[in-house]
């Protein structure tokens, strides 16, 4: 991130030598952050494009895969992340106004919510691990019952079973072979699920790192009306990560939910 503003010069202690004024510096930094977010849009965009193409190609499998992840957790996490975006926006506001205490608390709240999000994500990942829904057959238990995961227990999220199980809003008339095949194709869904949420979570982790650093500086009282660019930039980044999730949630969790219920 653009941290150049910490260099010391004659004017404001935070004014870097290559800038003429704090204004120019703030302008340039914010713009730089936006340009960086542009690259992020394209990076996630590549994944979204690929995702859309496979969703068209393997729609039933994507439905089955989507049904097997917990919409409840996904929903809760969306709210958590939106909340954290709110506290982040408030933190920027507080920094700009120079409210030192509330800055710190708001940043802390953002971090707590961010951590909560990652916690839920970890729980969801763990469930998938437990249910043998890790795509590929290199890490751990492999995928469903085909990657070497010897789970035959129905309660363990065997997608082929779920597709036919009325308890999971499945259709028992679907023959076993067919269900198995669809289940196998959900591996692609899970590849995308993990790639997309994984990349997203990776951004969250980086975001938490940034927030920690901001928190320390905010406690030191560095930010006020004349200089709050770092908080502003951190905010932009955090909100962006939030936006990605706003799209990930319906795309991954809500494919044809009405067919299968909660």
């Amino acid at each position, binding site marked *: 991130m653009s941290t150049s503003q910490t260099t010391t010069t004659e004017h404001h202690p935070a004014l870097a030598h290559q800038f003429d004024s704090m204004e120019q510096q703030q302008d340039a930094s914010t713009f730089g952050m936006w340009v960086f977010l542009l690259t992020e849009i394209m990076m996630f965009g590549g994944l979204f494009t690929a995702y859309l193409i496979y969703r068209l190609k393997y729609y039933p499998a994507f439905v089955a895969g989507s049904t097997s992840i917990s919409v409840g957790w996904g929903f809760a996490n969306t709210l958590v992340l939106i909340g954290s975006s709110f506290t982040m926006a408030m933190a920027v506001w507080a920094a700009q106004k120079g409210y030192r205490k509330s800055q710190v608390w708001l940043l802390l709240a953002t971090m707590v919510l961010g951590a909560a999000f990652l916690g839920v994500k970890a729980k969801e990942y763990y469930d998938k691990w437990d249910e043998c829904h890790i795509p590929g057959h290199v890490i751990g238990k492999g995928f469903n019952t085909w990657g070497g995961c010897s789970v035959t227990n129905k309660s363990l999220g065997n997608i082929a079973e779920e597709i036919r199980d009325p308890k999971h809003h499945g259709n028992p008339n679907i023959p076993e072979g067919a269900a198995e095949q669809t289940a196998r194709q959900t591996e692609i869904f899970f590849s995308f699920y993990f790639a997309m949420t994984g990349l997203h979570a990776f951004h969250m982790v980086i975001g938490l790192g940034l927030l920690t650093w901001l928190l320390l500086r905010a406690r030191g009282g560095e930010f006020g009306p004349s200089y709050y660019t770092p908080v502003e930039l951190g905010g932009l980044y955090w909100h962006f990560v939030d936006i990605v999730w706003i799209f990930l949630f319906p795309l991954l969790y809500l494919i044809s939910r*009405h067919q299968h219920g909660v």
Partner: protein
Amino acid sequence: MSENSHPTPGLYVLILLALVIGTCLTWGIAFVDLGIWNPVVALTIAVIKAVLVILFFMHVHYSNKLTKLTISAGFFWLMIMITMSLSDYLTRSFMLR
């Protein structure tokens, strides 16, 4: 940027409310069978939520033209990538025979 005032906490709360409502709406509607419109509705709500975040949480509403242009360019390019890739996949079945 800085020449304009940023939004107030009151506005932020409003936005938060809108976002929460949007999320609940997405969640609720997902269980209603709308045929092919399900994903469309879900994504429309998502776009609205994203726009709210961008405009207010990210202060774009209060920023200069350049920032607005930058963001539009980003989504425009994303659309190029998605539509032109899909143009191949969606027209393949009309292969000449």
